[in-house]
């Protein structure tokens, strides 16, 4: 059997994902994977529909809160807790998307930002989030009643599986006829309308999908860190996911993942240096926008395309 280069490349990446926890601290890798899934879900909107949401932290953070609450207070199993988190994010996405798609471009970004800020204040005030403390000591539990997620490798492989499935889903959506319509909307919205597509419905569905998958990432992160806190609903988190996507390369398959890992590495290596993380993130933002708009993967993709690999 002849494997295509594309398949080999994907298998190689998967292999790296499988062996890496034996060399690198698994919690760090899981943080990267959660943000990678979050950024990929965000890019479903930015890279493929051309919608810049500045409020994705609300889906990520609120799903985390619900999962943490379900696992800790209701003692639900991890799979059910995650499911509840994803449902919350999806519903939140439905309402926010329904409001936000009434405006385009910059306004869309401002509306999502404002709605996310509202949800941030809800998180500050609502009793179940425990305000500044967050929901701490979330039990990881037994996945499907079988797999003890307290084992570092068990939870790592679970997170990896969820990440791969999530990315595969996004890839599938983008490649589907639905995804092609989304691209058409991105490239020329009036034309898509004149061709008879109900553009608003397509946008809304993409928004809800993106919100749901972001929620999945947030739910998983809550279980990994056994914590849901205000950090993940703050607008800084919304900005970070934009940065990850921009840096890695929007509209590419692996760009947001790479961007997420780079940003997480920066955060970890500068964790002691206080505000320098923010300063460097700001500087990368400025550089990316001015000189590096296609991102790392976007810049490398022609080179990969020559050897028959789509990245």
């Amino acid at each position: 059997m002849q494997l295509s280069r594309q398949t080999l490349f994907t298998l190689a990446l998967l292999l790296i994902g499988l062996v890496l926890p034996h060399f690198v601290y698994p919690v760090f890798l899981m943080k990267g994977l959660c943000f990678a899934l979050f950024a990929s879900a965000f890019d479903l909107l930015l890279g493929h529909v051309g919608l810049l949401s500045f409020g994705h932290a609300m889906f990520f953070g609120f799903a985390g809160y619900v999962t943490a609450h379900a696992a800790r207070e209701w003692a639900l199993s991890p799979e059910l807790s995650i499911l509840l988190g994803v449902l919350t994010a999806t519903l939140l996405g439905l309402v926010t998307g329904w409001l936000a798609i009434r405006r385009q471009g910059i306004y869309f970004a401002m509306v999502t930002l404002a709605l996310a800020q509202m949800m941030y204040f809800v998180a500050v005030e609502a009793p179940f989030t425990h305000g500044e403390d967050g929901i701490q000591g979330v039990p990881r539990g037994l996945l499907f009643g079988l797999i003890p997620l307290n084992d570092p490798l068990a939870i790592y492989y679970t997170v990896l599986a969820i990440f791969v499935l999530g990315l595969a889903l996004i890839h599938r959506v983008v490649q589907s006829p639905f995804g092609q319509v989304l691209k058409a909307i991105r490239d020329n919205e009036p034309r898509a309308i004149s061709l008879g597509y109900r553009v608003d419905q397509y946008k809304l569905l993409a928004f809800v999908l993106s919100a749901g998958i972001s929620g999945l990432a947030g739910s998983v992160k809550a279980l990994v860190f056994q914590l849901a806190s205000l950090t993940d609903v703050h607008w800084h988190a919304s900005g970070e996911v934009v940065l990850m996507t921009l840096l890695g390369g929007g509209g590419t398959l692996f760009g947001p993942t790479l961007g997420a890992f780079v940003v997480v590495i920066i955060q970890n290596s500068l964790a002691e240096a206080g505000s320098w993380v923010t300063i460097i993130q700001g500087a990368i933002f400025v550089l990316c926008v001015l000189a590096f708009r296609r991102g790392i993967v976007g810049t490398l993709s022609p080179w990969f395309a020559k050897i028959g690999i789509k990245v």
Partner: protein
Amino acid sequence: MPTVFGIPMAALFGQVVLGCVNGAFYALLSLGLALIFGLLNVINFAHGALYMMGAFAAWLLLGYAGIGYWGSLILAPLIVALIAGLIERLLLSHLYKLDHLYGLLLTFGLALLLEGLFRQQFGVSGLPYAVPPELQGVWNLGFMILPIYRGWVVAVSVVVCVSIWALIEKTKLGAILRAATENPTLLAAFGVNVPLLMTATFCLGAALAGLSGVLAAPIYSVNPLMGSNLIIVVFAVVVIGGMGSIMGAVVTGFALGLIEGLCKVFVPQVTATAVFVIMAIVLLVRPAGLFGKRR
């Protein structure tokens, strides 16, 4: 003590004044945003950072140059405008030909960068800035006690907003500015230096943010994070008002400050979310904003 709807009058008017003060800042900031957006098509995310820098400029001028409040009221906006001019010339002007979202992303990055730098230098605990002696004390209006400084802030904001409105609607310069918003290419063909006009507009918007910062310094403590939380509310104000008119931005700013103040009296738990809820309702009823035209 007289009461209204079971609320002591003094408390009610106290919150109304606080609301007006907040509204004064919303109005000044959203006016600057609207000016910049109108001509440059850029949503200036760094507006909050410029506001913060205005406050810091006042604090630094006092500490290192001995220049007091009145000097800062003139100098700090100029300093902020100068920095903004550099930002526009060196960075922002390269992005006008691209999708407008890049302007938003660039200014977001700048906001992070500036905020981080100030946090690194000055920490997050607020720095005190005293109310100038001329504006200390209170006026007893009979039905309430009005701190003079708060009245001053509202008065300055109203005067500045009306002057800017008059500048744009009633002067030759304003006519050129409106023409540039309408059709920059045609205006350039008439020999007007449009890029210079853009820089000047960005500086003017930034100066308004800087001025707000100086006005805010004695009320809120001077703090690197003071701008970022405010600016998101101002964005919501801008969405509610629509970008169509200068007066729209000003009126919406004051009205929302007032509504927030009243919320604090009657339903304190929704104060933080009130503006955003109103924004959601406005989006449902009038997607282009109260004063906006769809474009």
